[in-house]
């Protein structure tokens, strides 16, 4: 059997259930903190937490595959059968990631686009509706999105969520992160000098120009931040305490080291383990 096919089957069989199980176990809500940026960081970390064990297993399997010759031990049919239910889940996740990457919502007033080289886009119609200060505030908000490469993060977050499907907690974590994201970028724009009231006015102007505006209908719905909450946060003073902390270098190094360790573990012991599994 081809090494790559064996890798895929083992990945589906072991990482697949781990994603779903951990997705169900990790709490879906992250406690709100006074700083929106810190809250966003926590929500982002919680989004990926359920994928760590499965990711570790995948790294081990990759390590095994790197040392394995092109033709590997065939996997028993029972194992292939057990892996099959995860095929539609992973295909669905990939299909939705592609849809997310290609989707272009109509009539975007202002946004950040581009997965590899993010850039700010502001429609001329929207720009004309703003004062100079409101335009600056909008740009500051969008530049904060560029700084963090948020279009790519949105895509990866969607993929991470879909790999845990049909766990409802995963969608709740994604929704909470998306909510925290806009509040965090508003806060960052204000910390960079943009006026909260000008940004609030710009947001209201964008909401008026939105393509789905319909007279006499109910309040803002959807996965984003309720309008009242966002405007309220912009009109409130910036949080004094609990200033955001950049992701800990120690944590990043530890995760990288664990990943590399997993690959090395797979490379050294993978053959023994896989042979025992498929025997």
């Amino acid at each position, binding site marked *: 059997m081809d090494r790559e096919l064996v890798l895929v089957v083992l990945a589906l069989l072991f990482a697949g259930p781990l994603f779903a199980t951990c997705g169900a176990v990790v709490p879906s809500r992250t406690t709100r903190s006074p700083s929106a940026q810190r809250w966003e960081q926590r929500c982002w970390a919680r989004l990926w937490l359920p994928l760590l064990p499965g990711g570790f297993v995948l790294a081990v399997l990759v390590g095994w595959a790197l040392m394995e010759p092109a033709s590997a031990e065939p996997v028993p049919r029972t194992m292939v059968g057990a892996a099959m239910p995860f095929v539609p889940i992973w295909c669905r996740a990939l299909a939705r990631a592609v849809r997310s990457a290609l989707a272009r919502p109509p009539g975007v007033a202002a946004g*950040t686009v581009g997965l590899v080289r993010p850039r700010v886009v502001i429609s001329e119609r929207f720009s004309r509706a703003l004062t100079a200060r409101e335009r600056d505030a909008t740009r500051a908000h969008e530049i904060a999105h560029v700084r963090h490469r948020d279009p790519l993060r*949105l895509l990866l977050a969607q993929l991470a969520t879909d790999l845990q499907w049909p766990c409802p907690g995963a969608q709740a974590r994604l929704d909470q992160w998306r909510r925290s994201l806009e509040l965090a970028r508003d806060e960052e724009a204000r910390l960079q000098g943009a006026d909260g*009231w000008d940004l609030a006015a710009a*947001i209201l102007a964008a909401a008026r120009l939105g393509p789905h*505006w319909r*007279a006499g209908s109910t309040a803002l719905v959807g996965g984003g931040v309720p309008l009242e909450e966002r405007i309220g946060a912009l009109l409130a003073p910036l949080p004094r305490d609990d200033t955001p902390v950049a992701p800990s270098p120690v944590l990043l190094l530890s995760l990288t080291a664990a990943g590399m360790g997993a690959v090395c573990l797979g490379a050294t012991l993978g053959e023994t383990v896989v042979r025992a599994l498929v025997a």
Partner: protein
Amino acid sequence: MRTRALPGGDLEYAVLATLWDLGSGTARDIHARVGARDNLAYTTTAKVLDRLHAKGLVSRALAGKAFVYQPKAKREHIVRGLARKMLLRLLGPQPAPAIATLVDAVESVDPKLLDELARLVEARRRSRDGS
């Protein structure tokens, strides 16, 4: 492109499938094959046929005292439509686009809410500029 109606549920599909097999039939003929087998009342089968007729999936013509039903939709079209529906259900609702917009795409916005919030923001800005 006009969205084609599809049979909703197993019973509607079973009745339609029976019509495809028979070619045409009265409610009693169809009930004998589908409804009676599942211990359903005759009126249930008749209601299902009414619904299929309302959806444009079957046609009917009066023959004596009873309607004779004929399938209007082709089997392959319905099967393809149902498969597509199942695939879309599996894919789930449209994923959020990988674009960070200033305001999320929304289903609807209350203009009164917008006006109220705009008044609040303007009042704050006037007090800022005035001070």
